[in-house]
């Protein structure tokens, strides 16, 4: 039965009849029922004859009301509590007393306040930690160059497969589609000048110099950067990193180096694949929409692009791979304590690696322009 309290006024005192199940299942109704008890100035009798069942939750809800009334000076008498309902009453008394004290002592955890400069300070701290991590990477790389036998080829190959071979279909597909889109838009604009055919130059040069490598890098950041951070982060939560260390293995060597190396080796290959798919995409569109055939497309292509364009794109790839690998592993190692931090660091890994790739690309652009390439 639902918990209830009936109020009866009787000879100079208020009588409250408690009935029903005062249990956790009816917690909301219990709280509502206690509103019936009010300070009237007369002594109040709480009569528990109709009580069917009571548990800690129900008892507390009743108790806090009684306490509040007693504090406000009301005289309250408890009547007819049956021992079978409240065989834990002594325990509850002690417990509630203890809890009252605990609640008085309880301090809300300090709210996090953001002060100006916090963001900057945190960013600088991350940057500092990143640089330390970079240093460790160099140290372990140097060590591995001196002791090449220590390199874990199996891990490297496994990472190559996961990061590149499995990414190839999606990278190729995106590059193909983006090339089609660019070729289509380019052709539509250039048509106005009667220079439609130059859309081949537009698309192929942009694919080879920028788009192929950037799309690959963004895809890798999303696929592999996040995977590195989540894998290493979960291992860290699971104390696997500590286990590696106490087994005498260096996590940087076992986990980090193979992953970074795999990305450095594989990004150029993936970029090459993306380039080829881009050229194919632009070819498909050109042949389909103009009266060019594949032979003509091929000859336009060879006059439009120089080998330089291709090499410039490819040369950026290992650098991007390096940035993504280092960022992903760094954020994985930065995971601490909670599942939440795995999520946060994984997000950071993707965001930061794409950001770094873009920065590096801008620097490359400037350098290549200065070098007149």
């Amino acid at each position, binding site marked *: 039965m639902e918990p209830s309290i009936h109020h009866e006024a009787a000879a100079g005192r208020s009588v409250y009849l408690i009935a029903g199940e005062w249990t956790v299942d009816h*917690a909301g109704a219990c*709280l509502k029922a206690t509103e019936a008890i009010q300070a009237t100035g007369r002594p109040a009798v709480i009569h528990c004859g109709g009580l069917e069942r009571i*548990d*800690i*939750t129900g008892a507390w809800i009743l108790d806090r009301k009684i306490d509040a009334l007693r504090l406000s000076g009301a005289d309250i008498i408890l009547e007819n509590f049956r021992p079978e309902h409240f065989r*834990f009453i002594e325990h509850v008394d002690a417990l509630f007393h203890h809890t009252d004290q*605990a609640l008085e002592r309880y301090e809300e955890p300090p709210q996090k306040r953001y002060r100006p400069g916090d963001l900057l300070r945190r960013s600088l701290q991350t940057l500092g930690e990143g640089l330390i991590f970079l240093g460790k990477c160099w140290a372990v790389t140097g060590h591995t160059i001196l002791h090449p036998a220590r390199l874990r080829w199996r891990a490297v190959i496994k990472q190559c497969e996961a990061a590149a071979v499995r990414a190839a279909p999606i990278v190729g597909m995106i590059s193909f589609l983006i090339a089609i889109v660019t070729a289509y838009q380019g052709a539509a604009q250039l048509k106005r000048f009667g220079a439609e055919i130059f859309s081949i130059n537009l698309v192929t040069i942009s694919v080879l110099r920028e788009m192929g490598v950037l799309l690959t890098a963004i895809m890798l950041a999303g696929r592999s950067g996040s995977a590195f951070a989540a894998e290493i982060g979960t291992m860290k939560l699971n104390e696997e990193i500590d286990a590696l260390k106490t087994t005498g293995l260096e996590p940087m060597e076992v986990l980090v180096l193979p992953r970074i190396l795999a990305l450095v080796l594989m990004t150029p290959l993936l970029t090459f694949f993306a380039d080829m798919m881009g050229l194919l995409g632009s070819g498909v569109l050109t042949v389909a929409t103009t009266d060019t055939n594949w032979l003509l497309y091929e000859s336009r292509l060879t006059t439009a692009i120089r080998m330089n364009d291709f090499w410039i794109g490819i040369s950026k790839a290992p650098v991007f791979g390096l940035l993504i690998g280092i960022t992903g592993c760094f954020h994985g190692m930065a995971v*601490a304590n909670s*599942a*939440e931090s795995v999520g946060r660091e994984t997000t950071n890994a993707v965001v930061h690696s794409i950001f770094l790739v873009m920065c590096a690309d801008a620097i490359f652009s400037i350098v290549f322009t200065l070098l007149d390439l």
Partner: protein
Amino acid sequence: MSEPIISARGLVNRFGEQFVHDRLDLDVYPGEIFGIVGASGTGKSVLLRTLLGLHQPEAGQVSMAGHDICGLGEAAGRNLHRHWGVMYQNGALFSGLTVIENIEMPMAEYLYLPEEVVHELAMIKLGMVGLPDSAANKFPAELSGGMVKRAGLARALALDPPLLFLDEPTSGLDPIAADGFDRLILGLRSQLGLTVVMVTHDLDTLFNTCDRIGVLVDQHMVAGKPVDIMHNPNPWIQEYFGGHRAQRALTALTKI
């Protein structure tokens, strides 16, 4: 004896060719502390997961307080789940929440109570398991192993469940903390009239707290009072309870 609160009949669980349970029967009665033991790989965890409805058995049925849990839908299952408290071996506390938030979570989810009352109730549960109130605002990663177990128990008790499942409650605790935990469980049982099902390898806990013991041997369960179980002729049971550790735990117990 009264009606069993948990009753499993003809449970079959197997992985591939290997049978873990073969027509296993199990009864747990209200108000008792029932200990499940068995060698590694005899399916203690699978049994616990089956009872909790987390694992669908190949055959057989489990009824909890009269409800068949195998054929239950999502909503009915959830409703039944809130009447059980489960303490996991490693606490399984939500790592992103503080201890008090962990305890408040099931209450906030199920009870239509204002935040302050939920907080007060959570503080009661914190006191019930003997955690200092300074632990309230700590994150699970900042707690010791024993405190994690206690916090896990407090969360299991959040909704005043009549039935409590404990997975290895004292594993990884020092003997003093383990004794404290045994007393805590006995105390909760006598005060709240809880029914407790625990998987444990701690012989002290087994002899100190359990009213009945169920031993998983040969894909079946042999259940009975500790004294009866110890005289069971099964070789594994004889070895388990006849070993040095068991004898030591037993002599220590009789000395008291």
